[in-house]
């Protein structure tokens, strides 16, 4: 496991800048109904060989921050009121478009939720991967094709010589995602953004794909940003976790910290509402009431307060900031931060429940 090799979480005076750093990023959309604050002041970073998970429900803004990194959020209607994205200290957002493009697909690559729609239906799979190579490397078609064959083999696609000439619709779901991964790896990127990479797949296929990603991370020391709503997946694959709610990070910490000592009421809610396969029948699940808010009308104060069992008057007054709640905790270190003024109660309640 790569977990223990990861650099310490927050080096205030470390010499090397983080591999990829998102700093106070805000992404707003202007719509008829008002400003949708899809991402509202989000900061995180990821290092080589590390898996960072960004967890949240649909509409929490978890994909948008990743897409901003690759310049996939169209402006207008999107605006970036604040924030920066840095790759090894170089600001991506401030780069000229041409330079940004050079990073896309070579330094930072992305795989998407639905591999069927993410591949262009009218081009051969092999050509689409070759295009990725030839966009960033000066190689001949023949060389690119040989490289594609190698990649297809590496991601476990049987019979690559045949598959290279097929169209996406001739691939099964799992194979398509493998092809997407092959494409993403074509230029040996430092960072791989994986946006719900297995949501559209069956659980046995999911296991195949996750195994593949895990192997690639180890072999190539790639940093993986895993965006998902599936806490199970996070538990088995993430080194660190950012929990997002309504466009903000509400809790961030190491995997074990977040799962065993949640500090935010929302994280608590998520964990308590989950049915678990490893447990005999719980008497009752503990759901979060209500539904996630619309991002154009985020409640004042703590956005979670209308659904929160711990909420008090104070929660409405101000937006709680992401505070460090536990310094280096658990074995794997790192800061544990949460944006909740009732984190003590939350942890207490959680421990009680676990004991139950």
């Amino acid at each position: 496991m790569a977990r223990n090799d990861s650099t310490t979480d927050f080096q205030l005076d470390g010499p090397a800048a983080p591999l990829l750093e998102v700093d106070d990023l805000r992404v707003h959309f202007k719509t008829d109904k008002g400003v949708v604050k899809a991402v509202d002041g989000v900061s995180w970073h990821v290092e080589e060989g590390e898996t960072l998970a960004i967890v949240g429900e649909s509409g929490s803004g978890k994909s948008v921050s990743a897409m901003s990194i690759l310049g996939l959020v169209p402006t207008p209607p999107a605006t970036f009121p604040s924030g920066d994205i840095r790759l090894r200290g170089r600001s991506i957002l401030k780069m000229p478009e041409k330079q940004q493009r050079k990073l896309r697909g070579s330094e930072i690559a992305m795989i998407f939720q639905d591999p069927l729609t993410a591949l262009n239906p009218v081009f051969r799979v092999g050509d689409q991967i070759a295009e990725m190579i030839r966009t960033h490397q000066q190689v001949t078609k023949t060389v690119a094709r040989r490289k594609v064959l190698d990649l297809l083999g590496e991601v476990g696609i049987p019979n690559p010589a045949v598959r290279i000439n097929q169209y996406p619709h001739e691939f099964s779901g799992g194979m398509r995602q493998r092809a997407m991964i092959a494409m993403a790896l074509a230029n040996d990127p430092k960072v791989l953004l994986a946006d719900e990479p297995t949501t559209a797949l069956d659980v046995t296929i999911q296991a195949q794909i996750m195994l593949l990603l895990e192997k690639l991370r180890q072999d190539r020391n790639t940093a993986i940003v895993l965006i998902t709503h599936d806490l199970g997946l996070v538990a088995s694959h993430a080194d660190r976790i950012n929990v997002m709610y309504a466009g903000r990070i509400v809790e961030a910490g190491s995997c074990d910290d977040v799962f065993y000592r949640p500090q935010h009421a929302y994280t608590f809610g998520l964990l308590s509402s989950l049915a678990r396969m490893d447990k005999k029948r719980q008497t009752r699940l503990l759901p979060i009431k209500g539904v996630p808010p619309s991002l154009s009308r985020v409640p004042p104060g703590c956005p979670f307060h209308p659904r929160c069992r711990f909420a008090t008057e104070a929660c409405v007054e101000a937006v709680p900031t992401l505070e460090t709640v536990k310094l280096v905790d658990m074995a794997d270190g790192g800061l544990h931060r949460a944006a909740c003024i009732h984190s003590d109660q939350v942890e207490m309640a959680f421990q009680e429940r676990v004991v139950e």
Partner: protein
Amino acid sequence: MGKFITRRLAHAVLVIVAATFLIYLGLFAIGDPFASSGEKTVPPEIQEALREKFGMDQPFFVQYLTYLQNMFTFDFGVDFEQRRDVADMLANAVPATARLALFAIAIEIIIGLTAGIIAAVSQYTFRDVLITVITTLGIGIPVFVVGIGLRAGLSGEWIFPAVPRSFTIEVPWYQEVILPAITLAIIDAAFIARLMRGSMLEVMRADYVRTARAKGLSERKVIGKHALRNSIIPVVTYTGVSLGVLLGGALITETIFEYQGVGYLLVRAISQQNAPVIVPIVVFAVLTFVALSTLVDILYAYLDPRIRLH
């Protein structure tokens, strides 16, 4: 793919047989091509002679089958008015119509595609709004209004020879073709622009375009390769069908500009109630239209590999 083509062709043949039957039934069985028409009165004995001569005294089905058989050997029968082979008349009109159609299609594709792509890429800008307004006007205005407006406003010595010249003086073909072609192209170009804009916008929202961007491709490549190849499919379909319609004769435009193509031939035949000419031209139009539609479907399958499997 082979199976798909076979099935598509079989379908086309069925449709053609049924349609020709309807045409034949409609015009030959109901109307009598030899009856007095216009201001021409035909004595009964001559009507009788004509009927016998052209096999119209046979039972209906025999007539139809003979007709069908002749049609497939490009024998479209005889115009009873001038006693000319209709195939001969078509031999003059079809190339003229084809020239007009191809010219018009070329203009509309160039203008339509460019405008559509520009509008889609610069969505919400002034350019987009302008193009949208123009295309709406283009689609909304009937072709004969466009044609008449152009003819009234633009015809002159060199664009459209308003003053007839002795037939021995050679008139460059483009002089005759340019105004009708523009007339036809205006509306279709507007439609193509809209179609292109819409389908481009839809495609630009597709995940694979996002993938293409994520690959670090230049915007030119994203649009010009990934988006265009997919969004052009409906335009190809439309253009093909439109070509099918035009090759069957642009009735109104050819009439306005007195362009001697299939459409004008048909309009003249209709005004003369000349069924022996009407039927083959309509059959020809349907044939062309169905053939082009079939071709378009096959082309569609070529452009979109997903269709090929079926």
